[in-house]
């Protein structure tokens, strides 16, 4: 089949303003959008710039807007998006070049929620791992799946409005550790996510849940954090 790719282009060294370029390619319906982007870069314009790494939906590098919706190019098949495909960078972050955006505001918010295991208690007497039941592990299983692709945060209108809103991805990271029975910094993280630019700015739009390529129930996780601030229950 013949596919028409309309791609957002911006070269800060040449362009004062972004523009779109159109490429017509032969493609199989079962090919991925990432394959088409590689073909554009390899055979049409070597200056075309985008991020990609594992190409198998694990690294989260190639999140972009495909036909107006945040997706991973490596997990999106041509047959799922049709013969006319518009490719644009993620919204709400500064475009550096073509599809590459400045991820720093995203990671800055991520770092704010202390996204790492905190436990100052002495190790168990046998010196081995801190044990956890399957039920305790299941409590935060969904939010362990995040790959930090930023598809959720950059689909969120509250984040578009203000960089300082923590955003869904940071709240997912907070959820992952707050509900971990082995972690001891839940109170500290709840204080952080309850600040002015945290939980209360989630208006349950559900864009994040729809955008997540890992199908994490993000709005539900944020709801659980909201409930935790009032009930204090962490299990």
């Amino acid at each position, binding site marked *: 089949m013949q596919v028409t790719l309309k791609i957002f282009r911006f070269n800060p060294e040449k362009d004062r303003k972004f523009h779109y370029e159109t490429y017509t390619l032969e493609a199989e319906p079962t090919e991925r959008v990432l394959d088409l982007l590689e073909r554009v870069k390899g055979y049409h314009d070597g200056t075309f710039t985008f991020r990609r790494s594992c190409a198998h939906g694990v690294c989260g590098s190639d999140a972009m807007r495909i036909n107006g919706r945040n997706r991973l190019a490596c997990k999106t098949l041509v047959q799922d998006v049709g013969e006319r495909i518009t490719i644009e960078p993620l919204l709400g972050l500064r475009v550096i070049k073509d599809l590459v955006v400045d991820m720093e505001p995203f990671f800055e918010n991520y770092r704010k929620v202390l996204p790492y295991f905190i436990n100052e208690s002495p190790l168990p007497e046998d010196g081995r791992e801190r044990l956890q039941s399957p039920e305790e592990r299941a409590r935060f299983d969904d939010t362990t799946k995040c790959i930090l692709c930023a598809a959720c945060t950059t689909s969120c209108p509250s984040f578009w409005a203000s960089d300082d809103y923590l955003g869904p991805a940071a709240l997912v990271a907070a959820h992952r550790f707050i509900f971990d029975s082995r972690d001891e910094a839940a109170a500290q993280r709840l204080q952080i996510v309850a600040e*002015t630019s945290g939980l209360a700015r989630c*208006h349950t739009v559900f864009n994040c849940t729809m955008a997540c390529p890992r199908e994490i129930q993000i709005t539900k996780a944020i709801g659980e954090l909201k409930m935790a601030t009032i009930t204090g229950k*962490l299990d």
Partner: protein
Amino acid sequence: MMKGRNLPLNQRGLNFEMLMWYFTRLSALAMYVLVLVAVIGALLMGARTQMNLADVLRWAFMPNSIHVQSTNVPDLAPWATTFWKVSGSLMLLLAASHGVHGVVVVLDDYFAQKWVRQLVRALSILFLVPMSIIGLYVLWTS
């Protein structure tokens, strides 16, 4: 087995921002209840035959006897009780604070600078307090 993990009240991050978030949700539910009470009350007291839709809606959102003075309701006494004044006052205070807080939240999306947000909050309080006092004065002196 999962062991119960509970945080004490002062460690839950339950700050003013989160309290207002809960208040906005709960006040919406409370307003539904108040509207139902007011509309049912109005219907029981004669609105079925003596008030048009606009009067019923005014009664629903501001149950106050002056809202029926211009209608054909012959007896205003049942409308001017303390019950309806309290009900009207609750509706006024909940609606005003719910609405003004909603506006503040929306404006936060347009003003990211901290000082502008503080200014918006100060202006919203300046608006909310006198308007609530005027509303209460009308309700309790009519």
